[in-house]
């Protein structure tokens, strides 16, 4: 991946920059330039408002990945999840520091800042969000 391709998304990947439809108030991540919910696109086109997700959400679905995606080989087995964010959008991301046995639907998580992957030993390192269980969440069975 070229440096620029990742770099241009850092605002979203580091800080969960999102967008909000001025018509229906729905929040989108990644940010969209047009609201897919409002049938009259003209109403939202060029009018979407920038906003930021709080980073809080709950686990909606989860899987333990044993055959890694390219660049994630050293992390297997890792937990990947769909996380329903407090503001509405669903995100795809890893859940860190968790025993796969402890992961369940509905657990509260918060966004954390981690290394995603690196372009080999001499390339740039990509950083972005992953999710961590809220303190003690796994224990509350």
């Amino acid at each position, binding site marked *: 991946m070229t440096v620029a391709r990742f770099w241009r998304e850092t605002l979203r990947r580091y800080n969960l920059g999102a967008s909000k439809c001025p018509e229906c108030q729905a929040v989108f991540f990644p940010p969209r330039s047009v609201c897919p919910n409002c049938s009259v696109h003209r109403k939202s086109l060029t009018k979407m408002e920038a906003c930021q997700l709080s980073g809080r959400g709950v686990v909606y*679905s*989860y899987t333990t990945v044993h055959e890694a995606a390219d660049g994630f080989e050293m992390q297997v087995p890792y937990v*990947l999840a*769909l996380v329903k964010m407090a503001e509405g959008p669903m*995100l*795809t991301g890893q859940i860190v520091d968790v025993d796969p046995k402890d992961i369940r*639907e509905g657990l509260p998580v918060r966004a954390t800042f981690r290394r*995603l992957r690196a372009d080999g030993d001499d390339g740039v390192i990509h950083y972005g969000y992953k999710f961590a269980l809220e303190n003690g969440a796994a224990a509350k069975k």
Partner: protein
Amino acid sequence: MREVAILGIGQTQFGELWDRSFREIGIEAGFKALESSKLSSKDLSALYIGNMASGAFIDQEHVGPLVLDYSGLAGHHFPSVRVEAGEASGAMALAQAYLAVASGEHDFVVVGGAEKMTDVPDDRGAAIASSTMDQEWERVFGASMASLWALAARRHMIDHGTKREDFARISVLDHENGSKNPLAHFRNKISLDAVLAANPVSSPLGMLDCAPFSDGAAALVLGPLESARKYTDTPIRIAASQIATDFVALMHRKDVTTVESTVVAARRAYQRAKIEPSKIHLAEIHDAYSIGGLMALEDLGFYRKGTAGKALSDGEIGNGARLTINSSGGLKAQGQPFGAVGIAQVVEIVRQLRGEAGPRQVSGQEVGLTHNIGGTGATSIVHVLTRVN
């Protein structure tokens, strides 16, 4: 718009074809299709090729004229169109070819699908296979294709009480059928226990829930239905060819346990073909991952959401049962050469409707359906095929 018929079918062996190149398998499928009709290459006026990722797999783009060229048809100078819609590239090529003939612009066309996937190392292959998901918001965060389907599977289990065994049965069925298909990548039968005990890929999916990477090609000859009898004794009518799309990333879908594009494409296809899903008993469904097969049974309208698992465990689905799916072996056993999948599905339904399916022949079927999807369901294409009486 005029009616369109399938006049010829061709398919190569699916599997790891170490000694064969992309262009070779493409040409073989095309000529087999042509030979099975009474047409010759000079009757053709266009070629359509479904191919997902030749640029990534073999560094070769511009495969439209390449296949035409090595088919000895360069001198004809007719249009050769490469069509890409992820893993639905094959069915998308058919949909385009269908429109070309239906519109009257072309009379006779060959539509093929081909993918040469084993010319790259396994890890590179997996990376290319992931290219139909959202690269910036899924792949970057560690998603593999299997993991996305696994997320859908887990939620299906949560929302609908689906059991691990329910979708494992899709793989068992595929291998049962594949064992009777000489062109299939895998011809071994597998047990339910074997699927459940296979190495984990992305829980709850294991190795035997995932279709292989295969080389292979398949092709069809299309022409106007009105003159079809001149070129074949058993023309098969394309009663519907419908495409629907949806959000690219799984996370953005309304409900990850439903492939909405499949629901919509199927609904449109049933309207166009004037048929109810309950009247269809023969289908080739897209099951690159077993859970996808289970979801397709529901999304295509054969079963209500959350009930396909029980139907599978009750034995309602299987060769000659109430619903026959993937008599070819499906993606799991017949194989998964991306661009060829959608065409090979149609080839199998044509064989069945013509009564040429050999040991896996299902009797008395007048209509069959094919279901080909791209990514985790951003594109779904449904074709309904009928016998012509």
